[in-house]
């Protein structure tokens, strides 16, 4: 409470940081009006670092020093790699940066106590989907870069849209996340912070802490209790997609056979 009062949402700092982030992205994007000079990219990178520092300062404090530090590191990794994903010119590097961004997001989720979501992010995105991407990219482009990888469509408009979105989201979420109303306060979390166990690890030591045990059981009860219908609908949707893709593949083969029969000379 006292920390949140000591750092009121500084609107000016936030606006400046968002503007710097937008300018830095625009300077570093391939295919902007400046023609990809190396020095311009360095200026962009410096602006980006300044923007990150501004965003980190204008945010709210998390609590303990250890938790705060780990959070800043993993979220910094996530943001920097996400930016690098869109500014890098080689698709393979973009995919690797994206993997690093996912690792950062998973780290943020782990720090915030959402263990299942964090690990599932790695399993699903980094472990399965992105490996498929890499597989295809490496197969498809054995020889150098394609021309369409060296430009980006509408760099100015997209950075502006991104900056507006970032500013609006930060402001609105910052307003939302004041002191939670009395109904929704989580007692153990505030108690843990007030009690001085501020390091990330001691929460692990306390088996009575609901933040430390049976995440998965609670998540499962929530998913298969209140959200049963949504889970079932998603499952059916996935099944339909699976059946559809198999049907498309097998029909494609039979069409090819037919066309081959038609084309081949008698």
């Amino acid at each position, binding site marked *: 409470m006292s920390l949140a009062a000591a750092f009121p949402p500084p609107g000016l700092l936030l606006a400046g940081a968002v503007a710097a982030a937008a300018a830095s992205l625009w300077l570093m994007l391939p295919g902007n009006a400046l023609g990809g000079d190396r020095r311009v990219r360095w200026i962009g990178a410096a602006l980006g670092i300044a923007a990150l520092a501004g965003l980190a300062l204008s945010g709210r404090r998390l609590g303990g020093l250890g938790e705060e530090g780990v959070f800043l590191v993993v979220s910094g990794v996530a943001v920097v790699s996400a930016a690098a994903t869109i500014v890098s010119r080689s698709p*393979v590097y973009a995919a690797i940066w994206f993997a690093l961004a996912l690792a950062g997001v998973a780290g943020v989720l782990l720090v915030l106590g959402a263990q299942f979501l964090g690990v599932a992010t790695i*399993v699903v995105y980094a*472990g399965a989907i992105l490996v498929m991407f890499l597989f295809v990219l490496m197969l498809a482009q054995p020889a150098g870069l394609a021309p369409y990888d060296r430009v980006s469509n509408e760099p100015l408009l997209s950075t502006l849209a991104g900056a507006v979105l970032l500013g609006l989201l930060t402001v609105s979420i910052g307003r939302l996340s004041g002191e939670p109303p009395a109904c929704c306060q989580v007692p153990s979390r505030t108690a843990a912070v007030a009690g001085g166990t501020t390091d990330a690890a001691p929460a*692990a030591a306390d088996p009575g802490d609901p933040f430390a045990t*049976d*995440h*998965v059981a609670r998540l499962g009860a929530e998913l298969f209790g209140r959200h049963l219908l949504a889970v079932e609908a998603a499952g059916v949707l996935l099944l339909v997609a699976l059946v559809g893709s198999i049907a498309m593949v097998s029909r494609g083969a039979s069409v090819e056979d037919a066309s*081959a029969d038609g084309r081949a000379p008698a």
Partner: protein
Amino acid sequence: MNALLPAPATIAALVKIGLLVGGLMTAAAYLVLVERWMAAWVQDRKGPNRVGIPLTKIRLFGLGQPLADGLKIILKEDFTPKHVDKVLYTAAPLVILAASLAIFAAIPFGSVLPPLGIPGLPDPVPFLVAPALDVGVLWVFALSSIAVYGVLLGGWASNNKYGFLGGLRSSAQLVAYEIPLGLGLLGVVLAAGSLKLDRIINIQAETGTWFAFAQPLGFIVFLVASFAEAARLPFDLPEAEQELVGGYHTEYSGIKLLLFLVAEFLHMVTAAFLIVIMFLGGWHLWGVTGSSQEVTWIGALVRFGVLSAKILGVILFFMLVRWSWPRFRFDQLMNLAWKVMLPLGLVNLVTVAAVEEFRPQLVAALGGSTAGWVAVLIPWGVFFLGWIAAGLLTPSGTDNTPILTRGPLDSEHELRDLVVADPIGDRGGRTLVEA
């Protein structure tokens, strides 16, 4: 005030990490020696038995060999070819080793220590780096899927055909076998009701029934899939020496090659840990270790010893298999994954789910011990039926007859396929068909 000082739990975690990393590295070095002894034993020769204490004539059965090997490979020239992508070439071995070491954060390497009485530490101290991680099994699964990146990037960044082929083969193989691996894990998780590996051991110790006995089908599926995930023979296509020189690490030398080799070895050690923890009861042995969480120092050591002995046994099995089976062909490998292991894994999952669902009714109808036997016998029935079905249907059988001896219609059809598959060579293909 004391926020700057690390908490006792942090110090305990660091100590465990140090012990684990040091122990694993030493174990990997000596397991290489064991593997060479095993190779020598199978091939009826002596194997490494000379290197002992340097500058003396003491041989010590060759126990100095790992040290000499390590020194040699570290002191070798770390040569980076001109044609590689330098950043990814350097990053690949680091990624694979970091991922395979980080897996052990969630793997218990013993039971619990008796209470030490240090304030801030949990009371029996668990042999586990991250005891609060509620998703241990998923953590292991996630990080073993990250290991693919090292192989894929190493193969691609080498800019070498053999390396690239090895990387592609490896990623296809690892992605394919992750599915049976996950199905095998799911059966155990379903029966144990927890994603924590130490809890899974505790449940096997409490019931006295290891999951290998309760879920034989899942055990076999998991065993085969973990051989494939560790890329051990008969699944070592990513680095098949006779075809690909060295596979994805063809262009690597010196310490970077060492990192790759250690990571590969650690994959095998991880697989052995998982097999023992999930299916062979972990530190539990009937009549030797109890199931209680209150242990003496001797009890803790005995449990550690039992776990280590089981793991060594599984690793020896891995090594024996290496010299017993030839390598699969790639289509056989894929058929085995998708047409045999995937259905068998699903059958196992359904069986386990059914048994667990109706266990209360079984206990109510038959009484505790009879119900326990029935709950074990049903999966065994399914196991034999499943293997008979897999053997009779033989979906992994392939037509090995040379194309020339098939009927003329077959070969014409095959040429037509060529025409369709190869639009650029369309003209050539058509003339071929006309001829």
